């Protein structure tokens, strides 16, 4: 295991940020800490980096007890949401910072920084200052800076959170590819389930300072441990008092085994997908079908269809609020 967190608790005054959290991150993996804001994921990342001290519990990095170790001795690379670029230093000097601190020979620093700037496609920007870069470029610089010292683990706190949607999507793919090249154990924090599913091998879902579930993106989507994980990772609707995925609803024109009648309220075409708003037994629900299905059924507002959950698909009881 590259990172082991055991029974960590952290409070800020009365607020419990981490409540007995235990997580293991295998070497070489790319893991997402996913959850709503205030769920404790950034705090967990900062505890691993040594930027916060836990009230109790243990942190091990690469088999070494690190709970009381200061940040500068942990050998972690940390990337901040707002880049934390050293404004008075050029891109080159930013990336070289960790190596200069370690008093490496000038020639070695030059070689390593040049390689890293190529890796993050900033080789032509070495002499620029951070204020002359776009947000995406700054974040790539911050990543190169963190990688320069060859950290045991790379920690990214909402790395794409401050970027606009287009750059965000590009950088996601780019991070995934970078990890395939560099193989450093990587943990990133996000509140965007799509980002987590697209980039990570493994996802840790956190809410209210607790770990809700750990697993691969497919596991979490298909076998959510509870209704929170199910709702957070994908679309949900309710059928017969149970939480189901809208694309797991089967529609029929005539009654069939286990079906219930539903009135179509509205049909919305979203390209290939069609969203069908239904009224079932006095409750609103919706189904996601393909365009072909919608046309085959001639779905339109006012029609009555018969609905059931596709066999063997996940359904969780709705927690009484």
């Amino acid at each position, binding site marked *: 295991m590259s990172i082991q967190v055991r029974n960590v608790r952290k409070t800020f005054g009365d607020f419990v940020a981490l409540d007995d959290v235990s997580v293991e991150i295998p070497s070489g993996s790319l893991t997402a800490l996913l959850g709503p804001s205030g769920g404790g994921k950034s705090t967990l990342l900062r505890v691993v*980096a*040594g*930027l916060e001290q836990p009230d109790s519990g243990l942190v091990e990095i690469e088999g070494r007890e690190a709970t009381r170790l*200061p*940040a*500068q*001795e*942990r050998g*972690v*690379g*940390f990337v*901040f949401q*707002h880049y*934390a*670029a*050293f*404004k*008075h230093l050029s891109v080159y000097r930013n990336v070289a*910072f*960790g190596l200069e*601190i*370690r008093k490496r020979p000038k020639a070695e620093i030059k070689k390593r920084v040049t390689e890293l700037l190529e890796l993050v496609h900033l080789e032509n920007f070495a002499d620029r*200052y951070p*204020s002359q870069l776009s947000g995406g470029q700054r974040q790539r610089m*911050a990543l190169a*800076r*963190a990688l*320069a*010292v060859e950290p045991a683990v790379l920690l990214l706190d909402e790395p794409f959170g401050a970027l606009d949607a287009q750059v965000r999507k590009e950088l996601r793919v780019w991070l995934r590819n970078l990890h395939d090249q560099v193989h450093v154990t990587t943990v990133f924090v996000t509140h965007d389930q799509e980002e987590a599913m697209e980039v990570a091998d493994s996802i840790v879902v956190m809410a209210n300072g607790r770990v809700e579930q750990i697993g691969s993106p497919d596991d979490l989507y298909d076998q959510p441990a509870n209704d929170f994980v199910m709702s957070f990772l994908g679309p949900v609707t309710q059928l017969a008092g149970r939480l189901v995925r809208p694309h797991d609803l089967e529609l029929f024109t005539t009654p069939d085994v286990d079906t219930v009648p539903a009135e179509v309220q509205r049909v919305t075409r979203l390209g290939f997908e069609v969203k069908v708003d239904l009224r079932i037994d006095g409750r609103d629900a919706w189904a996601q079908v393909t365009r072909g299905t919608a046309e085959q059924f001639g779905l339109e507002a006012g029609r009555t269809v018969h609905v059931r959950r596709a066999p063997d698909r996940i359904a969780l009881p709705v927690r009484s609020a």
Partner: protein
Amino acid sequence: MVKVGLRVTVLAYLTMLLVLPVAVVLWHTFHSGVGPVLRALGTPAAAHAFQITAVVTFYAVLANTLFGVLAAILLVRYRFPGKRVLNALIDLPLAVSPVIVGLALVLVYGRTTGTGKALAQLGVSIIFSIPGMVLATVFVCIPLVVRAVAPVLEEIGDEQEQAASTLGAGSWQTFRRITLPAIRGALAYGVVLALARSLGEYGAIAVVSGRLVGRTQTVTLFVQERYQNFDQQAAYAAATVLVATAVIALLISRLLRPKELAR
């Protein structure tokens, strides 16, 4: 119209309070040429006063620079009990008259007090000598560096410092390589203010120094003493040098500001 009115008011205000008096001092200084000015400044008493002012100012500014940066970091970066009290104490010298500061120092360190006697036995004398004058000057300048640096520290935040620590920098390296360059402009400004204030300090120094001509007389005390003894040429000449030094210091602080921060 409002804009023009405002401009005229502000200019008139500054002219009456600042430009006119300084211009009159300059005119009095040079109205019979440069020769008498140089002669007035060349007397042993004048030279000695400049030396005393230089020494007192140097130590006072040095002490306030170190204390100012430490206090600003403490106030902005840390949470601790008594923080609000410390914050209020730092502004106290602005509210207390320098003369009272001087009297307070005499009451604590004077030769007839317990502390003064104990120090005297160790061969240290505070009142009527340089250490007391430095103390008095330090006290009146306390807020200047802190209040220049603290807002900038607040504004730059602590993420750059945290990034430096994850990259392996210890606290001194982080301060020298990251924090200090970021606060450089503000620090220079605070130091210049402290310098100007130290050069011009009169009230506290007057009480603490005992105004011993040729021993503890600073330039401000020299100006006042010469003026009262009808040696106006010397008084004006020394005053002009004080004003010129302050103006030059301010100009230098403008030039020291890094370009990317000024933008």
